[in-house]
């Protein structure tokens, strides 16, 4: 919702994770001053004030909502992938034991 020179966005925490909302606000810090406040237990209120007058408020609002969806997907991906990512890095730098090496050579 555009309110004067500000954009007020109410984020439903039943749909979006709090961390997704915070990350989205972080992304927009180059364009906007951001303030966050809980409106209720399930609603997170974000107020964006553009740093430059030339920026289009409807455009920023649209971009913010698109980014929020992407951040939510990333939060879900993190849950899905964090263990596998650890496994990949661990495997990548795992020292090869002498026994393993002998098995590999035999093969």
């Amino acid at each position, binding site marked *: 919702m555009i309110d004067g020179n500000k954009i007020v966005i109410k984020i439903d925490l039943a749909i979006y994770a709090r961390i997704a909302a915070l990350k989205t606000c972080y992304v927009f810090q180059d364009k906007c001053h951001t303030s966050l406040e809980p409106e209720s237990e399930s609603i997170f209120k974000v107020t964006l004030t553009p740093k430059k007058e030339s920026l289009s408020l409807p455009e920023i609002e649209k971009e913010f909502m698109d980014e929020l969806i992407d951040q939510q*997907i990333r939060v879900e991906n993190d849950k899905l992938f964090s263990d596998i990512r650890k496994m*990949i*890095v661990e495997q990548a730098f795992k020292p090869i034991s002498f026994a393993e090496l002998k098995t590999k050579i035999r093969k």
Partner: protein
Amino acid sequence: MMIKRRAYTILPYRFMRFGKDILLVNEAGEFIFMSENDFVKLRTYQLDIKDETFLNLKNKHIVADTDPTLPIYLLATKYRTKKSYLNDFTALHIFIISLRCNQKCRYCQASSEDETRTDYDMSIKTAKKCVDMVFKSPSPNIKIEFQGGESFLNFETVKFVVQYAKQLNGAYQKNLEFVICTNLLGLNEEILNYLEEHKICVSTSLDGPRNLHDPNRMTRKGTGTYDMVRKNIQIAQDKLGIERVSALMVTTRDNVDKLNDVVAEYINQRFHSIFVRTIHPFGRAVKEKLGYDVETFVKNYKNTLDYIIRLNLDGVSFSEQYATIILKKILTPFATGFVDLQSPAGTGISCAVYGYNGDVFVSDEARMLSKMGDNRFLMGNVHKNKYQEIFNGKVIRETIDNSCVENMPLCSECAFQMYCGADPVRNYSVRGDLIGHRPTSEFHQINYLIIRHLMELIKQNDADIMNIFWSWITNRSIEEIRRSKRG
């Protein structure tokens, strides 16, 4: 109720929107573009495992329709290859051979001293200690780079370092290389013969044609250096070979919109590439206000890249080095060894800087900070500290801990993560902390926009442009690339 078994497993990826398409990048930096529709299908397990999109994703280890152990192992191997620069701890050792300089450049970040101040020369005693320290590095590859001030002003110490390093290397048998950074003003026959005899590469500075070079790069008396530099570049190229002489330029507010003129000058000087470098916020560059905004730089960088591509299409073999480094990261499985785009940062682990007095810093910018009175990134001193204290000490550990893009805000989920890096020293100098603030960081914004531009070009998949990119990456002619594609 029967739960339908999913037909495939989704493996880690990061994503970014490119218009109506989505870029997906796996843990090893391999990428694929797909439609939004397919992206939704992927996430909701609706892709047909016989479909081409699925097979392409499987090829990139983003999905697996059998036991995922093998793709995870393969990703781990590819990840290790991409991070192979970690094996080269520490390969690049920069010796500040003297702070004296015969020039007074407008953007000097080295805060040079007057030519008469020999007390700012690296002594033989300090040089010996530095070389001893260098050879304690476990890296099989060692590059010693002489920097200043002006390196030729303390050439006796340069000669000592070369002789002593070669002597030590008789026992260590490392791949040993030398590079000397010089403005070439003091080049003479004796120095030239020495550089040739010891196969020392020359890295000089050229900011473009006379009207762009001279205002930035003057002698201490205030006269331009273009004529002398141009003449000595030719002499050095003729004696040492064109490939052993390279030049660097600095983009300032005065030449940022004239980069094509700089490229033309480089071609006139028989160089095969240029590195369009941004100015660093250190030393005199800050006082002289030589900077520009990110948009201005990126707009002009893109124009120049386009100009260089057109030159290649017209048969001129010439590359832009920053683009080449990023393209290599995107298009090949290999690491580049470029210390400024690494995670963890190359500070200390890939590159170390030895001050004229034996102080050891994580980077040249760290040395600049020290010159400005801030020793935040001083690892130790060769006269006072042992190798373990310097290269396994608190400073290097803290710097590395805070320069992994994998766990930095915004970078941790960025699809360009594998192609990018962190600069903790610059973050500290701009923001006062090592992590920095990505949304307002110029380093971040410039890298993001350049990588995105290159990705757009790759996405277009124009055969001629891709041939040019591969010629840059492999250092071969476009004709060779075309021939190899024809088989």
